[in-house]
């Protein structure tokens, strides 16, 4: 689910400017940190845990992380628009390094633990020694993710902004000829992508309770895998891909070895690309000669 949220960001950016936003995973990491900081700040301000507080945290996190997304685009990518293909990629890798080390310096290299904010859950069934539990936390995560995705889908399919985004995706030059401010649209794409990554970061923090400055890289690569698996450029595909990657990882860890679960994710990536280059829900591109 979390991968799905990040994957949507990848797919959006890839769809609109055709580049892998390497720093996206790190934006997610920044989001997780900002969520942590917001929680602590609110806690210090006397607002204890509760639905209202969580909503506030969510809003703060999204707002601040979106600012990061905007800045990254502005500093590292916009000057390179229309430049050759490798330049934005290198720039993105550089940005990823910058973000990682910036957070490391600003917040320290140690892992940050946070005790669960939403304890408890309901027990679904109990068998000899086993208890299949569904914690409130998991339910919350699923609910928030679905809610955010619903809002996002509405945004993309029903609003002028969404139309502008899709137009830029199809043909950026034509879109700009038709009076769409492409720079602004791309900026907003990054902002929305970062916002989704922020939600993902917060969910990650709530779910696992431990974050450090390095979580972005792996999450980023896996989310990209999810995006590719679902068919890059396809938003529902990204969510589906994220779900699949999460499930495969869980089952792999349960039945095979935990150490190699990342290998499993990467192998899926390779296999998908080799045998199903357009992903599950992607559009086939016919090679024009």
């Amino acid at each position, binding site marked *: 689910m979390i991968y799905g949220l990040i994957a949507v960001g990848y797919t959006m950016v890839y769809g609109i400017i055709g580049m892998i936003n390497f720093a996206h995973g790190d934006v997610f990491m920044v989001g997780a940190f900002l969520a942590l900081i917001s929680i602590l*700040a609110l806690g210090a301000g006397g607002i204890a845990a509760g639905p209202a507080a969580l909503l506030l945290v969510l809003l703060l996190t999204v707002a*601040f992380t979106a*600012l990061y997304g905007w*800045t990254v685009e502005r500093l590292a990518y916009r000057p390179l628009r229309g430049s050759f293909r490798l330049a934005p990629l290198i720039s993105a890798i550089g940005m990823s390094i910058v973000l990682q080390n910036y957070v490391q310096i600003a917040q320290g290299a140690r892992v940050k633990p946070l005790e669960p904010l939403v304890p408890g859950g309901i027990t679904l069934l109990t068998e000899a020694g086993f208890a299949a539990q569904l914690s409130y936390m998991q339910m919350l995560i699923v609910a928030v993710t679905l809610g955010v995705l619903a809002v996002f889908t509405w945004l993309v399919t029903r609003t002028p902004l969404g139309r502008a985004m899709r137009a830029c995706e199809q043909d950026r030059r034509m879109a700009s000829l038709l009076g769409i401010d492409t720079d602004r649209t791309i900026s907003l794409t990054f902002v929305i992508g970062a916002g989704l990554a922020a939600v993902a970061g917060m969910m990650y923090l709530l779910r696992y309770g431990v974050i450090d400055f390095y979580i972005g890289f792996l999450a980023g690569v896996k989310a990209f895998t999810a995006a590719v698996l679902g068919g890059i450029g396809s938003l529902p595909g990204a969510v589906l891909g994220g779900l699949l990657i999460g499930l495969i990882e869980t089952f792999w860890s349960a039945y095979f070895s935990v150490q190699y679960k990342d290998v499993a994710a990467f192998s899926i*990536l390779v296999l998908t690309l080799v045998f199903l280059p357009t992903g599950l829900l992607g559009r086939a591109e016919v090679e024009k000669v």
Partner: protein
Amino acid sequence: MSAPAGVAEAPPRAAAPVAGALREAGLAALVALGLFGPMVGLRTEPGAGGLMLVQRWPTVALLCAMVFVGRFGLVWARSHRFPAFLPALARAVPLALALALLFALMLPPLPTGETLLSAGGHDRALALLALFVVAGGVFLALGWGRAAPAVAVASTRSGRWEGSLRRFGRVLGPLLLALALLLPALPWVGRYTLDLGILVLTYVMLGWGLNIVVGLAGLLDLGYVAFYAVGAYSYALLSTSLGWSFWLCLPLAGIMAAFAGILLGFPVLRLRGDYLAIVTLGFGEIIRIVLLNWVSLTGGPNGIGGIPRPSFFGLSFSAGGGPGSFADFFGLEPSPTHRVVFLYYLILALALLTNWVTIRLRRQPLGRAWEALREDEIACRALGINVTTTKLTAFALGAMFGGFAGAFFATRQAFISPESFTFLESAIVLAIVVLGGLGSQIGVAIAAVVMIGGFEVFRDLAEWRMLVFGGAMVLIMVLRPRGIVASRTPTVALGKRRAISGELVGEGHG
């Protein structure tokens, strides 16, 4: 090329440049406040009963002020019609100043009672000054290269820079080579410099190896470190478990790496562009994770130690001298420097071998086919070029040189672990290639010297140097997206060879 540098959009009209610049700067500072406020201003620290927040508002204020000043300088400089040199200067000075200030800020606080001017702070002040000058110079050069008046057409503008660099380069190449050859003999060169030289040359070699894949064949490989790792581990395992000599294991390590390249290449080479990049990245990570977890073979996170050092035609470099050692044979005083010098020349020879093979291949059908592949794959197919094998040779050859470098790394360190083969290494090597200019041998060498050398000079700054490193990558890409040497020299000509502007050269799709 015509994109504005830095963060600005259209410059404010000349009507009220100062007011406009002030407004712009204010906005930038506001953004900075949003960025740095929570992240820098509130530091999470483990305290009693969980995490606590530590407040650091002065730092935030300082950062915002820096952004304000820097932005103001940029906008203000742009709004004036200076000769080409001045805006570059105006841009370079605040940037360098900001960088130096940033460093000053981030360093651990000085011991009480010392200031920057007292004995203890002296080194630091000097280092900061040096940083300021170097950074300023680099920004100036980069800015000047592109800040030429807009009347000049893009091609002639870059042409001028290229022209001077080319003229300079004709001297520079041999000069660098001579310097590299003579380095150990220079009187003021010590052990540290030699070690640094070895490190730089390793990256030069890696860069040249990757240049075959990315620069010539146009295949974006983000997992180059995998071949480096395969080479290093092959060498380490062969030499420790079988006891074979360096000169036998070195080619074997290269062959193993080339084999890994072919193995990876077969399934993925029909992928294009970014897909290929991400799969190679995945491959690099898979190799690393396998190395980390296959404890029985690779020792897992503990790595492999006690890797035999290379010998000079059977003569060892043992510190004690003794019969059969290098020092004994030549009647020299035993010294640990001998080995370092030997290693230095070894990697120099390996790097030059890479260069020689690349330069030769470029002038031959195979190399030309690589470049043609980068330009247009479909046309290659229509001309009867077997695209798959051509790509595979590039991949295998690049991998082989990576493997050689890996073997050298293993024998030099005598210890390897998966930690040395992270994605960051791939990124650094790729950055060297792209910064140097795709396909340009001399550019790659310069980029390696600047990046790795610069990286090492700021070793004391710990994590800060990574921050600066990443920032430098972004900045250089923004200022010179095509790298230092952006043009291409034809491999054959009827008349005089003329450089081809980078704008025409393809970048590859696969």
